[in-house]
């Protein structure tokens, strides 16, 4: 379980984790980010963070009709872009809503388990553990 949410009550909603995720995917912006931050129905109620927990038996991979998602040894998946048709089943299968979507290329953004989101969070909302 590489990144987990330690305390979302401390999240200030700055989205710095999303930009870190995008940089890890070689982009500036948030289109290429898979981590998401949303208010819990209004900012006064605080924020929820949606991030891949690196499942060992990932439903996203099972849902992919093209076998484009390869299960990694220590959890999580890798995307074989050449096989991906952009059907979106993987994103629907993820109950955590931790798969991003690049609408420009119409492909999922898959967590690469790098921990950049956690390393960039100043408020200790996320914790990165390498097992």
């Amino acid at each position, binding site marked *: 379980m590489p990144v987990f949410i330690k305390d979302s009550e401390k999240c*200030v*909603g*700055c*989205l*710095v984790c999303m*930009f870190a995720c*995008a*940089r890890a995917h*070689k*982009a*500036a*912006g*948030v*289109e*290429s980010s898979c981590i*998401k*931050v*949303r*208010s819990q*129905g*209004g*900012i*006064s109620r*605080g924020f929820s963070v949606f991030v891949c927990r690196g499942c060992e038996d990932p439903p996203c991979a099972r849902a992919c009709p093209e076998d484009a998602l390869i299960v990694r040894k220590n959890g999580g998946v890798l995307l074989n872009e050449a096989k991906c048709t952009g059907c979106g089943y993987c994103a629907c299968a993820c109950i955590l809503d931790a798969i991003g979507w690049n*609408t*420009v290329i119409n492909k999922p953004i898959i967590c690469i388990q790098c921990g950049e989101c956690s390393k*960039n969070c*100043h*408020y200790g909302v996320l914790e990165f553990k390498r097992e």
Partner: protein
Amino acid sequence: MIDRDPLKNVLYIDLTKKRFWIEERRDLFLKYLGGSGVAIKLLEENCSADTDPFSPDNPVIFAVGPLNGVFPIASKTVAMFKSPHTGNLGESHAGGRSALALRMAGYGAIVIKGKSEKPCYIAIHGDKVYFRDATTLWGLTEGVSPARLIRKNEPGAGLRTIMRIGPAGERLISYACVTLETYRHFGRLGLGAVFGSKKLKAVVISGKKDLPVTDFKKYKEIYEELLHQLVKSEKMKKYHELGTSANVLPLSFSKGIPVKNLLTMDLQGIENISGENFAQKHLGRRVACSHCPVACIHLAALRKPYEDEPYFYRTVYLSYDYELIYALGSMLGITSSEDVLKLIEVVEDMGLDAISTGVVLAWITEAFEKGIINDKHTEGLIPEWGNVNIYAQFIRKIVYGQNEFYRYVGRGIDYASSKFGGKDFALTYAKNEMPGYHTGYASHLGYLFGARHSHLDSAGYSIDKEAMIKPMTAEQLVEKILSEEQWRQILSSLVICFFGREIYTADVIENCLRISGFNFNKEDLINIGREIYASKYRFKIKCGFNMDSLSLPQRVFETPSGNGLLNKDFTDRAIQLLKEKIKSLL
């Protein structure tokens, strides 16, 4: 400027014909960067000298710059319009998610013109613009939040901005604000009333486009260094910890925070409305604007019992800052943090600019005490320093009141005091009400001559702080005010939050701009800043703003400031210099 950067796109929206189109304006962004610089050029193009602020022809312009969405704390949007409060340049800045949403929807600026026949709101999702009916939202006040309804009906959660007005904007109070993300505001100079005049209840913008950079490796390096500085530097500490309200006690100690319409600088019990006390008693949550790790937004949790129902409470979250504690606290002789929060709640519900509202209430109180107005004017309300319940009623009356008096105070105290008298103690600067610093010459001259008559134009209080240690000549003071305001045009064109100004030095900005494909050196930037400043002033003068008729309110000479009693000869000399220097730029 990078070729495929969507910054060049200006979205035009015509509310009358319900049409929209996009024009490529690379020319403007290449020369004036974005934000304030591009907005003033779009204002020149779209607003003539004789345009009435409430006519359909008055444009509402939102602009961002090249660094928004690319670098941290470049998190603000500039709004420009003709101000119904002053009749000339209307400019206000806000954060929230607005800058990110606008930039990533694929635009550098938006120009909204025309007037809707029925109340409506605009939803901008990427390259699509929707004109939605808002007749049901018009007139809603406490209880049902229009923003909540819009939130439910629009896509883009997490990456969208919802800018909306309250009853004050609908009813054309000239200092009505536009609220975004519940806690941020285009506060000053009446953008809310311009929305209201267009029957425009709200603007929703969502987008998440990636942005191009020239050199990704270099980009990562600069980004990471900036992020590190923003969270670790001592320069950012006060915004991180207590927030801007950290200034209440030091300014009270140095006699810089105005009390009771500036009748005095002493307030017994001011420690109860200090940043320290707010944090200890009320701080419930800290939040940030998008793409800013500083999280200066401090939310107080106010628990209120229902008077008619035991064991029923409601907890509201309210954002507090130094300016609000001044305007709705010390200025009104209020020394309880709960009372300040109660007034903040009413001001938020009404959708008013907090600073102007507080100063208007202070003027009403003194005018009443002096017998200039009486309970016939106020329809029975008797103002009293420190009486929160009366002030809460007054705020609602300003918005909903029907009689002549309330119609006048709904247009600010310059207008009201022209009718009823009491000019000497009307704390207004070229028609805009006073911000919370009576620290010395620079703050007052900054409000008077700043292009938007705001404390943020040139941060005179910082200059006054220097002057406390080492006195300045009028020449030195004027030079500092002007160069600061001109440099700030660069920050507000990029658009970087002013709180990050010490991190974003000229060198840093040069490097960041190179990543966005702009090659300017420090000297170029200073020249661009000066040109933007001059353009703003030219627009003001074209609209009838007259520097020769400017003067400081008499009251500021009567109460000692942080730098002692202000000397009239000194201010006259400085005013003369300011006029000459500004005229030489035009």
